């Protein structure tokens, strides 16, 4: 097991941690904006994840996945951003939205 393999495993572990963090924010996030940001982070983590997997498997094709996702990941954030603006005031954090 060369140092690279350890690094890859380490990277996977850390990325999973990041995903876990994003997940908790999606669950707990008081306002929609928090959740959207968490999704954004998740997308970035995915790009990284497929990059690492490309390194591990030596298959260049996985970089296409990260390339495509990088290009498109922010789209969900924009859609939700517009939605938030259209919807007017976000309710105070305590009360969960009803929409």
């Amino acid at each position, binding site marked *: 097991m060369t140092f690279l393999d350890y690094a890859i495993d380490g990277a996977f572990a850390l990325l999973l941690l990041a995903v876990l963090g994003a*997940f908790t924010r*999606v*669950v707990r996030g008081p306002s929609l904006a928090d959740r959207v940001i968490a999704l954004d982070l998740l997308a970035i983590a995915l790009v990284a994840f497929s990059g690492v997997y490309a390194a591990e498997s030596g298959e260049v094709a*996985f970089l296409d996945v990260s390339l495509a996702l990088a290009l*498109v990941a922010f789209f969900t954030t924009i859609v939700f951003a517009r*939605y938030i603006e*259209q919807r007017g005031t976000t309710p105070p954090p305590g009360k*969960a939205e*009803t*929409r």
Partner: protein
Amino acid sequence: MLIALVGFVLCAMRVGTVTGEDALTVARPWVPFLGVDFAFRLDGLSMVFALLVTGAGFFVALYAQAYFKGHPDRGRFFLFFGMFMVAMLGLVLADDLLLMFVFWELTTASSFMLIGFSHDLEKARASARQALLVTGAGGLALLAGVVLLGNAAGTWRISEIIASGDLIRQHEHYIPILVLVFAGAFTKSAQFPFHFWLPNAMAAPTPVSAYLHSATMVKGGIYLLARLHPTLAGTPEWAWTLTVVGAITAVWGAVLSVRATDLKVALAWTTVMALGTLTLFLGSEAQIGLAAAITFLLVHALYKCALFLVVGNLDHEAGTREVGLLGGLRRAMPWTAASAFVAALSMSGFPPFLGFLGKELKYEGALAVASEPWLAAGAAVLANALMVAMAGVLAIRPFFGPKGATPREAHEAPFPMLAGPLAMGALGLALGLMPPIVGAGLIAPAVQAMVPESVDLTFAMFHGITAPLLLSVLTVTLGVIAYRLRDKLRRVIDAFVGALPITGDGSYRRVVGWIADGAEGLTRILQTGRLRTYLASSFAVIAATLAYVLLRNGLPPLDLDASGVPFHKWGVVALIAAGVVTVLLAKTRLVAVCALGLVGAGVALIFVLYGAPDVAITQLMVDILVVAILGLVLPRLPRYEAADGTKRRFRLVDATIATAFGLVMATLLLGVASVGVDREITAFYEANSVPGALGRNIVNVILVDFRAFDTMGEVVVLAVAGLAAWALLARPKEDEA
């Protein structure tokens, strides 16, 4: 009208040549695969019917020419009329079971058209529907019977089936075939349980009633029984059912005909009576019985058709069919009176007429009926007595009785409307005067077609003082008495019928009502209009069927050792599981959408980890697009009704269905995985992906080249889905504008 004439002449020429054996057959393959071919066979039995169909058809067509003068959709009438005649001819000439069935259904269809001809009348439409439903249902049963019979006999050709009679009788399907064929015949020929549609069918214009409902169509059932007689007859079931049903129908028809005040309905009920007697005689094996059936068939067709046309004249000229109103039209309509009188004489069976010969044979046949001679004879006498009475009511009352107040001042019908009845009446008399010619020419070959052994029948007008003669005298006297006190009879029967708990019509209407309510109830349960019920029911059904299949042939071997799976794959699985749980617990749609995004990403990760970049990219793109579209849709959705989510019962039901579905899918996949993926297909694609389609990316090569046809389908589906969504979404805007 020309077709009818040509047809008639053709058949007439054939009369001489046809005796039982050397029938004319024409066969051309129609559906070779099923062994069904376009086969026609003209033998004695079909000859009688063919003559009947074309002859009566000619006269009725002539009559209709004048009857419909100036009627807007005359063309449509003759179209259906011609269609019916062809169908009827086909039915009687067909030598192939399926071909016969096709013509059988054609007659039902054209009769529906003809009964409902004056479609603006609600009564006509209702009775047309009723006739269609009853005869149609019978037709369906007949189809099953025909198929069973074809399989049992191993061939569709009727002539061969007739020969293999014994084989069929021992065949285990014999009883079902019998029942089904009876169902078809009884509904078509308006036998006892299914007789109610015939009187209602009088809503049709008179030529139709004259032709369809007296001479030809209702005889279809009788033809079927006669044609299959050699194959199916000869067993007690056949004899008993026919005799009993025939007797009941005959008596019931006769009784109710007296009660009817509308001349056409009265005629309809007498037709029911006649059909009853015909079925009665077809029950017997004795040649004399069959001969009686054929002769009475001929006699009945002649006088009934004539009488119907007479009533048509009355209706057309005098404007009413009510017995009470009509009277003393002798001077106004001499010719119609004459033909009515002649037909009535033949109907009541006075000596010089064919009717008498028919009645004589009938009594002889009745006495010879194997099972119950006295029952048959009794029924025949009673029925005929009432027939005599009806003959009086139909012929004497309107013409010789006191002058009635008819809505229109009656004057003689134009010549074409007289030709029919007069000719038929005269024919009845002429045939009566020369029985041997009729016997040898028509009756004998027909019976020959039905009975394997040779036929020796003497046809003479006068047989000397024999039992049947006495019976005839008895019938006539009874008839005259019945005619005298018909009003009292009518009241008695009225009371009796009123007291009847169920009538044919009533039960029919009730059954149709039940079916309609049942259908309505079912749709209300299924089509609740809520997406939730659709999804729930479909998933539940899938899960149930899969589980049933899995359990029935044993659970596949599940290897659950997950040792080799590296930790990060487990991490992803955990992510997906957590995502799903959040979706379930989400209070608002937004949280659910985000969590779904999470699950989508997790699934994409799995694709990545298992080496499928193509699919991973597609999954991610779709995931993002779905979230985007949801983002667009969310502002338009109504509040997330909390009630929807928290109803305890709903959530429980959904939860069970979902878990069941998940479990079944999991076991299925594990089963498939443990069996080991069949590499053979992948090997094939790996081998010729590059040479065949010049592409290394097998997934896309498959999509676009090898299995391009499927993609073509998917592409079309996608486009249609887009259109559907557009139609749903963009439409309201236009409506509002």
